[in-house]
C-alpha cells in the first residue's frame, strides 16, 4: 500500500467518443491539492467507491496541478463505473506514480511523437508541455494512427496543432472512410513524410505494442538511436509502487520503473509473448 487515496471531486467531464471520456479532477483537501505535483507521463490510481482502482495517466499540464485531467476508455468494471459519474461526484486518487517522459533530456531536439489508438492520452500532456514551452524544443511532429477512422478522438486538436509553426500532424487509419482525408494504411507508412532528422530526434511512443514495435524497427533503420526512443508501457497494476508484482516486465516493475522506458530497457522482452 503506497498511501491512502485522497478524495477528489469531478469538476468537469468531457465526452471524447462513445467510449472515451475525460474526467477533470480537483483534490478536495487543501493541503493535498497544494502539495500535489506531477510530471507528464506519470499516472494516478483512480478509485471508484466500492468497486476498485485503475491506473490512469494524467493528461493535463504539470504547471496546473490543481486540476487533473484523466482520459479513460470504458472497458472494465472500474472504468465503466467511472464513465457513469457526473460533475460533483467524488472519487479517490493515489499518486502520482512512476517515471514520466524525459522532457529535460529532450530539450533542444526535434520531437517525434508516435501514438496509436488511445495511446495518445498519456502523450497529450507531452504535446501540451512542449507547446507551452515552444522555444526549448525543435520541430514537433505528431503521428497518430488508429484502426478505424471513427476511432480518432481530438480531431480538432490535431487540426489546430497542425497550424502551429514548426509543428506537423500526420494521421493514419488502417481503415479510412468518406470523411478521412488523411493516410489510409499503417502508421509507419507516414514516417517518410515526417522528414525525420535521426541524429537530432527524440521519439516518444505510446500505443499497442505491435504498432510500437513496427515503429521502432522503422526508426532504427533510419538511424535513430535506440536510446533516443522512449515508450510508455502498460501492464496490470494493483498497488502502483512496485509491490504487488503484477506489472513485472523482466526485472522492471512497470508502475515504478516506468511506465515510460527508454527502449533499450525493455528491448530484450519486447514482443516476447508472455511478458
Amino acid at each position, binding site marked *: *500500500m503506497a498511501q491512502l487515496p485522497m478524495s477528489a471531486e469531478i469538476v468537469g467531464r468531457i465526452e471524447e467518443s462513445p467510449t472515451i471520456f475525460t474526467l477533470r479532477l480537483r483534490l478536495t483537501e487543501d493541503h493535498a491539492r497544494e502539495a500535489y505535483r506531477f510530471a507528464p507521463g506519470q499516472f494516478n490510481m483512480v478509485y471508484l467507491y466500492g468497486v*476498485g482502482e485503475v491506473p490512469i495517466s494524467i493528461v493535463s499540464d504539470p504547471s496546473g496541478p490543481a486540476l487533473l485531467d484523466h482520459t479513460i476508455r470504458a472497458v472494465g468494471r472500474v472504468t465503466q463505473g467511472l464513465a457513469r459519474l457526473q460533475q460533483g461526484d467524488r472519487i479517490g486518487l493515489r499518486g502520482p506514480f512512476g517515471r514520466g517522459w524525459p522532457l529535460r533530456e529532450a530539450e533542444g531536439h526535434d520531437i517525434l511523437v508516435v501514438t496509436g489508438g488511445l495511446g495518445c492520452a498519456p502523450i497529450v500532456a507531452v504535446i501540451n508541455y512542449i507547446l507551452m514551452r515552444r522555444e526549448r524544443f525543435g520541430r514537433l511532429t505528431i503521428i497518430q494512427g488508429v484502426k478505424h477512422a471513427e476511432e480518432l478522438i481530438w480531431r480538432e486538436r490535431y487540426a489546430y496543432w497542425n497550424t502551429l509553426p514548426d509543428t506537423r500532424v500526420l494521421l493514419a487509419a488502417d481503415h479510412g472512410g468518406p470523411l478521412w482525408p488523411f493516410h489510409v494504411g499503417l502508421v509507419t507508412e507516414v514516417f517518410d513524410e515526417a522528414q525525420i532528422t535521426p541524429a537530432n530526434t527524440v521519439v516518444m511512443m505510446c500505443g499497442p505494442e505491435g504498432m510500437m514495435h513496427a515503429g521502432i524497427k522503422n526508426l532504427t533503420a533510419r538511424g535513430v538511436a535506440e536510446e533516443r526512443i522512449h515508450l510508455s508501457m502498460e501492464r*496490470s497494476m494493483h498497488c502502483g509502487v512496485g*509491490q504487488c508484482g503484477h506489472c513485472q516486465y523482466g526485472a522492471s516493475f512497470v508502475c515504478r520503473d516506468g511506465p515510460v522506458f527508454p527502449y533499450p530497457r525493455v528491448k530484450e522482452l519486447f514482443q516476447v*509473448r508472455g511478458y
Partner: protein
Amino acid sequence: MVPSTTDPAQDAAPVHLPAQRLQDLIDELRRGGYACVGPRLRDGAILYERLQSTADLPVGLSDEQAPGSYRISRTGSSRRFAWANGPQALKPLVFVPRETLWRATRRDDGALAFDANIPEPEPLAVIGVRSCDLAALALQDRHFLHGSYPDPCYASRREKLFLVAVHCSHPAQTCFCASSGDGPRATSGFDIALSELDDGFVAQTGTERGAQVLAALGLPKASAEQLADAEAQLARAAAMQQRALPSRNLQACLFANLEHSRWKDVAQRCLSCGNCTSVCPTCFCHSEAEVPQLDGKRSEHIREWDSCFTQTHSYLHGLTIRPDTRTRYRQWLTHKLGAWHEQYGRSGCVGCGRCISWCPVGIDITEEAAAICGSGK
C-alpha cells in the same frame, strides 16, 4: 525498526541450555510480553502455531519429503527440532494471506473519507525458525520495507517479531539451502540461535535483546565438546543435501533461453495450481480488491496473496498476457532465479525445497533450472 543483526552480542560466548530448561526460555519470553509461536503437529504437518509449553513441540517427530510428498514419521528421539520445514514459512506472520489496507466511507452527501487500517499486533516470539526462512524474511523485508513506499501493515508486524532460530540438523530430501548459501546454519537475522543436541541446546545470541533473554536464564558456557558436536551436526546437515541449484546468477542464461523446449515440457506436467507460490517464503505477489459493505456506506480495500500461475495475474483490459501454463511457469522461474538478481541483488530462492514437496505433481525447481542452465553440483 528491524533489529540489527551485526550486534556485538553475537560475539558473546555460546551457552548451554539443557533440554528441560527450554520451558524457561518460553517463560522468559512470555514475561517479556511475547506471545510464543513454534512448531506443532497439525493436520499431518509441522506448522508454526501458538505454543503454551514445550509439551506442544513435535518431540520425536520427523518428516519424509520427496517431490510431491510430505509425511510425518515417528523417530522415538527425544529431540524436538529434528525435522525439516513443513509448508509454512514466516511469510504469513508478516505478509498475511488477506488483510484490509484501508477503508473508504461515503457520507450521505457523497463525500468520501479514507482511513488506514494499520494492525496493532502483540509482540510475537517465533521459536524454531530455520535459516532458509530467515533468509527469505530478509528478502521480504527488502521488498516491503526498503523501497520508496514502506508497507505499514508489514512493518507493524515485522517490528514485533522476536526470532529464535534453530540451526537445521535434519534437512529433507528436497532441501538445497547449502547450494543457495542460505543454510543449514542461521547466520543472521535472529535474536537467539540454538543448536539442538541430544542433551539440550547450544545457544548463541544475535542481538542485544536476545542476549538479555539468555542472560536472564543464567546458563553455563557451552563446553568445547558441545560446540564441536553442534559444528559437526551442521556439517552433516549440509553434506546430506542431495539437491543443488547453481550458485551463480542465472538471469542471463534463463532470459537467453525463453524459447527453450523445456518450458513446453514442464507446462505439460504443471497444473498451474499456485501451490509453489503459496508455500514459497519469498513470493510476494498480491492482488488488491474491494469488499463493499451491504449498507453501501463503507467499503474495505483488501489485499490477498496472488500467484503468477493464475489467469487473472496478467490480465490487462481484455487481454491476458500469460494465457497458458508455459508462459506462467516461465514467468515464475525467470523471476525467481533470474530477475530477482537485478531487483534485489540475489536469487529469490533460499533453497527451502517447499515448492518441490508441495507440488502435486512433484516438479523440481532444481531439475527445471538444470535442464535449461546446467546442473548445480
